[in-house]
């Protein structure tokens, strides 16, 4: 499979730092902010952002993980019920600014599911979206507030993010026309 690298580990590191700064700038500090990463890999990125914010602002921001499997719109369509991950949100989201964090923004359906899930946890003041890669091809009216890198892709290409915490290294990869049915993230 022809695969090429869109971002290497240095670029990812810089993107994370920049996004952390942008979150602080936009929200005038970290006081009302909580981070919720969309499992899987979104939560690892959320933890990295929290670490950056701690370094920059000397402030610990609460981090949670959200599994959106039960909110997906394709349950009953795939051969098997989609795989489930962990949800852990130990803090109150009411009256806070929730920054959703995900690795790749594509059709927007994952984010739509995440919004539905989040709203069941409470009523945030605002929900913002931070993504490492925006690859276009939106099918719903969703947009990211903070973007690591905008990458134009063909719809049939497969964009994958590898993270040190899970995959042993940091990289953003694109592969040609892989017809994958499983683990297809929108």
């Amino acid at each position, binding site marked *: 499979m022809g695969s090429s690298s869109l971002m290497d580990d240095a670029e990812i590191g810089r993107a994370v730092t920049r996004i952390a700064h942008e979150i602080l700038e936009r929200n005038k500090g970290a006081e009302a902010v909580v981070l919720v990463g969309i499992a899987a890999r979104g939560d690892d990125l959320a933890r990295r952002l929290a670490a950056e914010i701690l370094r920059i602002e000397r402030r610990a921001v609460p981090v949670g993980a959200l*599994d959106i*499997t*039960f*909110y*997906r719109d394709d*349950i*009953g*369509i*795939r*051969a*098997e*019920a*989609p795989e*489930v*991950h*962990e*949800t*852990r949100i130990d803090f109150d989201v009411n009256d806070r600014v929730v920054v959703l964090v995900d690795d790749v923004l594509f059709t927007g359906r994952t984010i739509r599911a995440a919004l*539905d*899930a989040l709203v*069941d*946890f*409470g009523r945030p003041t605002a929900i913002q979206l931070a993504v490492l890669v925006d690859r276009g091809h939106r099918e719903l009216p969703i947009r990211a507030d903070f973007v690591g890198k905008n990458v134009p892709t063909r719809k049939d290409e497969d964009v994958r993010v590898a993270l040190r915490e899970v995959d042993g290294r940091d990289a953003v990869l694109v592969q040609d026309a892989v017809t994958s049915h499983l683990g297809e993230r929108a």
Partner: protein
Amino acid sequence: MNRHLLSIDDVSAEDIVRIMDTAESFREVGTRVIKKVPALRGRTVVNLFYENSTRTRISFELAAKRLSADVINFSTGGSSVSKGESLKDTALTLQAMGADAIVIRHSSSGSPFQLTRWVRGHVLNAGDGTHEHPTQALLDLYTMRERLGRLEGLRVAIVGDVLHSRVARSLSFGLVKMGADVTLVGPATLVPPDAPHWGVQVSYDLDEVLSKLDVCYLLRVQTERQRLEYFPSVREYARLFGLNRSRVELLPEGSLIMHPGPMNRGVEIDSDVADLPQSVIEDQVTNGIAVRMALLYLLLGGRRGDGEEAGDG
């Protein structure tokens, strides 16, 4: 996973792990303020309960509702399951209503199998006669894993009227499948003579096995059966097999006491024993909802069987 859950035979060891892992997520949902997810929105789950069992039915009902499915209850006592209407006719009616899943509890062993011949939806066995009660076994396995961290090598005793217990069958088969070490304990007349074929040991002496257990699982003794002369009296049963305070002292530290409910306090288990911290009977109930949610999700979350024919049994 198989299309139906009729017996523990329908799930492999890998399936069981997957069910338990999925149940973990649903347990978390149960801790939220809004204990509901839209996963099975638009699906219809029918509870077909020929035997009165409020607890199991409510557990399934909650499980389905928390998945946002629509629930229909057909139970005896209501006008729906009228006297004289055959199981087949009831099945065809449910089919016509578009039931995606039917949860059936019936006093005749094998009825869930027969149901699969007449309906297209998924069939879940909520207890058939003296045959099996797979969802109970799965929630018990989940509870054991959650409290003790593993299933393989666990030493479990199942105590009581094994002969007439569908829970005992499902649980034995499930534990053996997951590599646990099972001993059936009870009066000789209430332990099936062929039980060793299930991969389990048999003992007629509870005191002998207590000190080597990780889990002591008590079955409800049907005091009505006593009339069938399987054992002389409830008193004698309690004396030989009841889990009383002094027997609990023999259990190793950290071991669990479990019971599928409802309990005969004072017969198979003393009242104060039931309320001890190592008794996880309440957990079993809570976990029941999460495990049933996991089962409904895994069975119905895959592609809808639109072209599928009835007759998978």
